[in-house]
């Protein structure tokens, strides 16, 4: 026999962990759904779901919480991927929640539908009676996330109680739920932004074009670059200009900032991320700049 070292790279180890998590949920939870935003994390999540159940199709539907303020490139990408996979897509629409009078839209130049997503998400979870929703959140994203479990339980109101989390030991997950509870499951908990990009490159995954450098008409606000779009009003004095940008995160057009970048290939992106000096949320997400505990507060209300 030849001597083999049985080496496993960190990406393969993270992949194996995520696949294990997804299979546990499929085996122990009645109805699960995979949350897909079209962003890089959910793209990786989708690939892991394919791998976990290959050669069968993954045994859950896919759900997009649609703010109505999407990048068109992302919607096009979403629909095409669903068709390729033959997956069932559920769209939970924020617009519908607004139209039904369930939520009131913020107004003014800084209006965002970010927080409204929570209502659409929780409604859809209740309507379809989903017991588990896979999300692409990572612990390196934000300080409250750093403390969240991989299996994260939500009460009747969708709320998260950081102090009442179950200990998670070894790779043994306790999926037993109380009536009215559901859980969010985060298979990418231990991935960093760089891991995600390295994996996308290694797997040659397709990403929406907005992740790579492109020319776009933007304006500057609070030190961030926003796309000119029908969803954002300019404030007095804000001037638009065209420059080469790319996105580090994909969210609502109204609160997701672009970064100036000439990274046109996945290799360029990996190199750029490896060298970056600012976190993705700090650089590109207005939603996390509200306060010291913006994310923690939204999570307590039932956010992703």
């Amino acid at each position, binding site marked *: 026999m030849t001597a083999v070292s*049985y*080496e*496993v*790279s*960190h*990406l393969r*180890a993270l*992949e194996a962990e995520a696949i*294990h998590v997804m*299979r*546990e949920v*499929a*085996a122990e939870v009645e109805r699960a759904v995979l949350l897909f935003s079209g962003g890089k994390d959910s793209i990786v999540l989708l690939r892991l779901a*394919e*791998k*976990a*159940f*290959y*050669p*069968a*199709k993954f045994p859950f539907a896919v759900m997009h919480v649609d703010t109505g303020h999407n990048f068109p490139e992302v919607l096009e*990408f979403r629909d095409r991927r669903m068709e390729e996979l033959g997956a069932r897509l559920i769209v939970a629409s924020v617009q519908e929640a607004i139209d039904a009078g369930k939520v009131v839209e913020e107004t003014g130049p800084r209006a965002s539908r970010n927080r409204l997503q929570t209502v659409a998400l929780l409604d859809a979870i209740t309507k379809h009676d989903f017991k588990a929703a896979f999300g692409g959140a990572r*612990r*390196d994203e934000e*300080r409250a996330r*750093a*403390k969240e479990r991989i299996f994260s339980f939500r009460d009747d109101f969708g709320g998260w109680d*950081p*102090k009442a989390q179950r*200990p*998670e*030991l*070894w*790779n*043994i997950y*306790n999926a*037993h739920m109380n009536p009215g509870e559901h859980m969010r499951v985060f298979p990418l908990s*231990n991935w*960093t932004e*760089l891991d995600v990009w*390295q994996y996308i*490159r*290694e797997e*040659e995954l397709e*990403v929406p*074009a907005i*992740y*790579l450098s492109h020319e776009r008409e933007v304006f500057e606000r609070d030190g961030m670059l926003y796309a000119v779009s029908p969803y954002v009003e300019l404030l007095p004095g804000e001037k638009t200009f065209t420059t080469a940008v790319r996105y580090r995160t994909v969210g609502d057009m109204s609160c997701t900032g672009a970064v100036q970048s000439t990274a046109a*290939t*996945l*290799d360029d992106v*990996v190199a750029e991320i490896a060298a*970056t*000096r*600012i*976190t993705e949320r*700090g*650089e590109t997400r207005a939603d996390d700049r509200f306060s*010291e505990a913006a994310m*923690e507060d939204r999570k307590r209300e039932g956010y992703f």
Partner: protein
Amino acid sequence: MAGPATNGKVHVDSRPSELVRVATAGSVDDGKSTLIGRLLFDSKQILQDQLEHVERVSTERGDGYVNLALLTDGLRAEREQGITIDVAYRYFHTAKRKFIIADTPGHEQYTRNMVTGASTADLALVLVDARNGVVEQSRRHAFIASLLRIPHLVVAVNKMDLVDWDEAVFDRIVADFSGWAAKLDITDITFIPMSALMGDNVVDRSKNMDWYDGPSLLYYLEHVHIASDRNLIDCRFPVQWVIRPMDDEHHDYRGYAGQVASGVIAVGDEVVVQPSGRTTRIAGIDTQDGPLQEAYPPLSVTVRLEDDVDVSRGDMICRVNNSPTPTKEVEATVCWMSERPLSPSGRYRIKHTTRTALAKVDDLRYRFDVNSMHRDESATGLALNEIGRVRLRLSAPLLVDEYRRNRATGSFVLIEESTNDTVGAGMILGADED
């Protein structure tokens, strides 16, 4: 820009790097947050906005210096109380390795958090304040590291700047700690004198301690050999999920999905499926990326068998001459994690690998006093954070190994039926352990 993009060029600079899981522990104020902050900062993982945040908060608090410890503050309640409550996970990488740090608070009442962080760790990092030497907490941390069988233990003797970088102080702590550790099951201990605050021996070698010729902490973390800590001998493949596509292309396909717990599985191997005891051979190992000849921990794969034997979730595929005997009775060390104590006649769900059964506590043999190593045989329960030895009777057979031989198949959790909470962490003992 036209159309979505993929990139044909791959694997350019993606050399394989290893994943290393570290659990940290220290008493309050030993400098754990400062050390982690320093490690992240000096290895350039702290980004500008995070640093600005820390600078701003340091000023608001009147710290008088950039308090790197603030980098690891998580929840609001923690910031308000100035303590860490829960396990927090931190990530950093170097060219060689990616590290996951399970940062566990050191207070006595949070033993359960350290056990949680330690359960998956390759390496434990325990802090000792050079001025205080080995204290009760340090002993507890070393004990938990040995109980959970973390293969490597690093003792960071911190705040050496406050003891004039004195070699004698360091030597005394090393002797003290080693004396205690000799009673434990720890195979590999390394002591590093450092100053987390000033950065000595964290990333760079200290210029203040010429007498120390060992590695800096980061150097050690990058080089400690962990690949061989895996059990590559005893083949154990707990079946998680049966894959049956039932489409035209894979009409008769039946695969068993799981994560290799230990050992190596190879195509052609003669295997036994437990608990039925049926034998067959491995027909193939599948992944979406193509078939494999062999699979080993921690890979998640799908296995096909040559014969049409009945296999379902909770079964375990093992080698014919090396497989656990199904048992309905286990002896185990249990760490209790709930405010409602373990009762000597309690009934719980037990989850072991992918199998769940019911367990009744048959006997609470003793409670362990972590500080004195004393066994209290008169104990009538286990309270939160207490550790004891129990005998459990099970409703269905489990396929267990001794924890000290196999972390994956020697561990289990106890789940309270009425609340669904995870209340206990268990480690299975061998016949000769006592």
